């Protein structure tokens, strides 16, 4: 058995703090998978997962936000029941909704870059609402583009058919999640580590 014989190489305090938040946000993302809130005029109830993807970018920034979501994907990949319907396994990461899952880390990174303008975190409550909303809308567009695109390719559907199955029923919910993310950030109740 390979035992480490070198000196203990301590993890930097700042990294531990950010890493602990990233790991627990990944857990929250998984724990939120079974929660569904019904909304009027749509057959699909909303789940809070995309909301936490938004918050990962907003509160953890362009490095630890995507890292958190990659941890979530890794945990699901080895079989923890963190994906929709409390399922898990490597298969889900290539199945019909894999495009959405793989878009999450990129979306969180995009939000982090647009809102924080670099790796030093700013207080997102101090950033203008227009910038936050624009970042969230861009991230939503990215999530659906990747999700629908992959579904269309995998299941050999026409693009409009994939949009019907994979995007249209969810649009009302997305507007609501953007509103919720903005409300949470502006409330100032949740601090970023560096701000």
């Amino acid at each position, binding site marked *: 058995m390979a035992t*480490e014989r070198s000196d*203990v*190489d*301590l*993890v930097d305090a700042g990294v*531990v*703090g950010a890493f*602990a*938040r*990233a*790991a*627990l*946000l*990944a*857990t929250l993302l998984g*724990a939120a998978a079974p*929660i569904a*809130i*019904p909304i*009027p005029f749509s057959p699909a109830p909303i789940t*809070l997962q995309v*909301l*936490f993807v938004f*918050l990962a970018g907003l*509160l953890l920034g362009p490095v630890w936000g995507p890292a958190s979501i990659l*941890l979530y994907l*890794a*945990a699901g990949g*080895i*079989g*923890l*029941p*963190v994906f*929709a*319907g*409390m*399922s*898990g*396994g*490597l*298969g*889900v990461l*290539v*199945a*019909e*909704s894999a495009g959405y899952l793989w878009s999450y880390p990129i979306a969180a990174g995009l939000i982090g870059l647009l809102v924080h303008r670099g790796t030093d975190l700013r207080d997102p409550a101090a950033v203008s609402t227009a910038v936050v909303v624009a970042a969230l809308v861009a991230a939503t567009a990215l999530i659906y583009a990747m999700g629908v695109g992959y579904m269309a390719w*995998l*299941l*050999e*559907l026409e693009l409009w*058919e994939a949009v*019907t*199955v*994979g995007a249209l029923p969810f649009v009302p919910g997305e507007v609501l999640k953007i509103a*919720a993310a903005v*409300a*949470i950030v502006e*409330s100032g*109740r*949740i601090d970023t580590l560096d701000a």
Partner: protein
Amino acid sequence: MLTYEPGDTVVHALDPRAKLAVQIGFATTALAHATPRALAGLTAFALAALGLAQVRPLRTLYAYRFALAILAVGPLVAAATLGPPWVDLEAGLATALAGYRVLLVLLVSAVYVRTTPIRDSRAAIQRTVPGKPGQLVGVGVALVFRFLPVVRSDLRTIRDAMAARLGTERSARERATTTAMNGLSRTFARADRLSLALRARCFSWNPTLPELAFSRRDAPALGIAVALTATAFL
């Protein structure tokens, strides 16, 4: 729900890295081919894997019911056409075959989930992904595993408290905001305590890992993994 179940089958005894390799090989070749002949072969392989691991197919399918719903709707949407002849059977069949291979990929990954403890998967990740990222992913996955029940119960408490205060009568936006905000503030408070505890225990980049070794019985599994991956290019 699909989780690890202890057992003494051949598949349980394999190294997790060999099993991961087989899954990746299977998924690669399944995504490359959707012809009926290829699907027959893939089905035989998936059933053999389920049989060897003594995993029950129906129970597994039930665990993936959410994915199956979309796979079932897909062919109907693909077959429907605007204007005569209204139904395009060929497009529907293509989508059905494409969806079926996804089902097979899910079944094979279920074999891994049923036969591999999270601890082993963690060690496999940490030994395969090099350097500091590997360390963080390994520890992070272990943390997600430990904290999942705790965070779930946090969310349940928040939702119960909301329901007791007639929160279910409020608008969806308010409910989403309250649940997410309280969930997040509790989770971050936990994370900050955890970070203090990790530092107090000398959280380091080079801890000693659980033992993991390839043995002779992993050789066939690795061979199968390579063969499956190679068939993707046929």
